[in-house]
């Protein structure tokens, strides 16, 4: 059940399998292991079967079908699917059912994909371990005592464990790439503006981006081709044409220039095993004909601080809409103001409250210039350093995360320690660039990810560099051995 999309699509087209058979296989996989992994907030197989049968019927009749026809997929639970609960793993949205589809959902369904479930996440995408879900922890399929990363931890775990062929996630500071790294799969954050965010529950509006979590680089290219493109419903969404992202994957990368920022490589938080795998990755790239050069990007030392001013500021504004008036949890009170305060206090978890409070502080009178304005200026410096680097280099590579997946509970009581796990991914969101995490090694049975960051709107070039590495290595072929619920309880 962990075959990539490209192979399953071929099998469906050739008649070797049917959408219904694929869905049944997926369902039995979910029945067998979901009790251990807990990737899904809710599943929707009963709605999926008629769609799969319909797809098989159309295929039999020889009707033209979309590129994802009959493929079972999962959607992070902060992306609206009409009629399915969209909870953001929060008590405040526990019973919310959106009256419309996100544009990405419309596009995936138009291409024939079948949604089997909504995946667990850190509440409102705030977190790096999925432990901030108000409902339950998701476990890493490679080691059930470890976190899957976050905030798109449910999506990453579902794909790694074979509970979905691919999944969508969202990435505000690394929330696609870091869980992809922890779960040994591919995670792509497209350029800011490449994919519509209409129907994505907003967290940090100048940072958020939807992207795919997949089993291969080619799968990521296929899915990006489906979800990218302008959307009149999202004014931040670019009108640039969408190329065929799979077309140039095979081109060789001789002469390609890669840069490694010393500020990230030499960070004391980087585990030895991660650095070792990364060094090996550099050698692989050199063997493929690319050059790797260490450079200095001094502003990166301030990226984490910049993020933890800007993201909470935007979150405090975006989450003001949860007032118990139109949707979501309402805790009754005598006055409107008391009702709003009570509803928010009961409905939000600790991390969300922490970020809202930090956000209102940095935006408040007397502190705005020293914190928010300052952070936005440092953000400009980060973008400038990227722009300078891209005059000389084709891509910037680093480990995706400083460590492998950590133990459940290890960092949950220390917010700063948790925030540091995003140190490699955060600078990318500051500049709105496309970035991908691909498997590049293992340490004690846990996957390690390689992060490659490219120029804005040049995902095709980025995917080519990632594909070359993937084809030259075997890491992406390994699969976790997840004990089934019945076997382990016998």
């Amino acid at each position, binding site marked *: 059940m962990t075959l990539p999309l490209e192979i399953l699509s071929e099998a469906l087209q050739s008649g070797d399998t049917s959408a219904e058979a694929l869905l049944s296989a997926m369902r039995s996989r979910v029945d067998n292991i979901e009790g251990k992994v807990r990737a899904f907030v809710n599943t929707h197989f009963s709605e999926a079967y008629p769609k799969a049968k319909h797809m098989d019927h159309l295929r039999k009749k020889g009707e033209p079908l979309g590129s994802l026809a009959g493929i079972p997929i999962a959607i992070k639970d902060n992306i609206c699917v009409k009629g399915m609960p969209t909870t953001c793993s929060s008590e405040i949205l526990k*019973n919310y*059912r959106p*009256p*419309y589809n996100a544009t990405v959902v419309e596009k995936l369904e138009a291409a024939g994909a079948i949604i089997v479930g909504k995946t667990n996440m850190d509440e409102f995408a705030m977190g790096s371990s999925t432990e901030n879900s108000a409902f339950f922890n998701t476990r890493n399929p490679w080691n059930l005592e470890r976190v899957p990363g976050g905030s798109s931890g449910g999506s990453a775990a579902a794909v790694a464990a074979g509970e979905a062929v691919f999944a969508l996630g969202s990435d505000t500071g690394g929330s696609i790439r870091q869980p992809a790294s922890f779960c040994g799969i591919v995670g792509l954050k497209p350029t*800011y*503006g490449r994919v519509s965010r209409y129907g994505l529950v907003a967290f940090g509006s*100048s940072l958020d981006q939807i992207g795919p979590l997949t089993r291969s680089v080619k799968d990521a290219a296929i899915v990006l081709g489906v979800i990218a493109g302008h959307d*009149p419903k999202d*004014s*931040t*969404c*670019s009108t*640039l044409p969408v190329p065929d992202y799979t077309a140039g994957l095979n081109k060789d990368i001789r002469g390609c220039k890669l840069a490694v920022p010393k500020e990230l490589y030499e960070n004391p938080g980087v585990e030895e095993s991660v650095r070792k795998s990364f060094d090996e990755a550099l050698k692989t790239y050199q063997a493929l004909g690319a050059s790797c050069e260490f450079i200095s990007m001094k502003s990166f030392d*301030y990226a*984490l*601080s910049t993020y*933890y*001013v800007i993201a909470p500021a935007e979150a*405090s504004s975006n989450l003001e809409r949860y*007032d118990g*008036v*139109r*949707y*979501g*949890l*309402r805790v*009754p*009170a*005598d*006055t*409107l*103001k008391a009702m709003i*305060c*009570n509803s*928010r*206090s009961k409905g939000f978890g*600790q991390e969300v*409250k*922490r970020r809202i*409070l*930090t*956000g*209102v*502080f940095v935006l*408040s009178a007397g*502190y705005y210039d*020293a*914190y928010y304005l*300052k952070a*936005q*200026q*440092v*953000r*400009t*410096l980060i973008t400038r350093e990227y722009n300078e680097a891209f005059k000389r280099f084709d891509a910037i590579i680093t480990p995706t995360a400083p460590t492998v997946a950590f133990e459940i509970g290890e960092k949950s009581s220390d*917010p*700063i320690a948790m*925030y540091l796990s995003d140190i490699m991914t955060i600078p990318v969101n500051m500049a*709105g660039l496309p970035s991908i995490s691909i498997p590049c090694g293992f340490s004690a049975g846990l996957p390690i990810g390689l992060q490659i960051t490219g120029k*804005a709107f040049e995902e095709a070039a980025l995917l080519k560099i990632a594909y070359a590495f993937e084809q030259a290595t075997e890491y992406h072929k390994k699969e976790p051995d997840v004990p089934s619920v019945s076997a382990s309880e016998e």
Partner: protein
Amino acid sequence: MVEFDFDHLQSLAHLKLDENEKQKLQDQVGRILKHVENLSEVDTHGIVPTFTMESHGTPLRPDILVPFENLSGIMDNAPLAENNAFRVPKILADK
């Protein structure tokens, strides 16, 4: 270490925390603000802040009203509704 009026922050955030939660979050927000203090080391004199990410400008569309048809889908989510309107408690507190 920056000093801040936590009760004022709570009020701005529309939150009402119990004493335990208040103490914990006050301490954690304080630590986060201390962590981000290193931003003051950066020379940003004359640097234009990044307030918007649209690198290619904001695409425009015709200003045409498109009605949203699924009214019941909206009202089904209402915690308390009456005649397709949201019901709320009184807005002004008693004197």
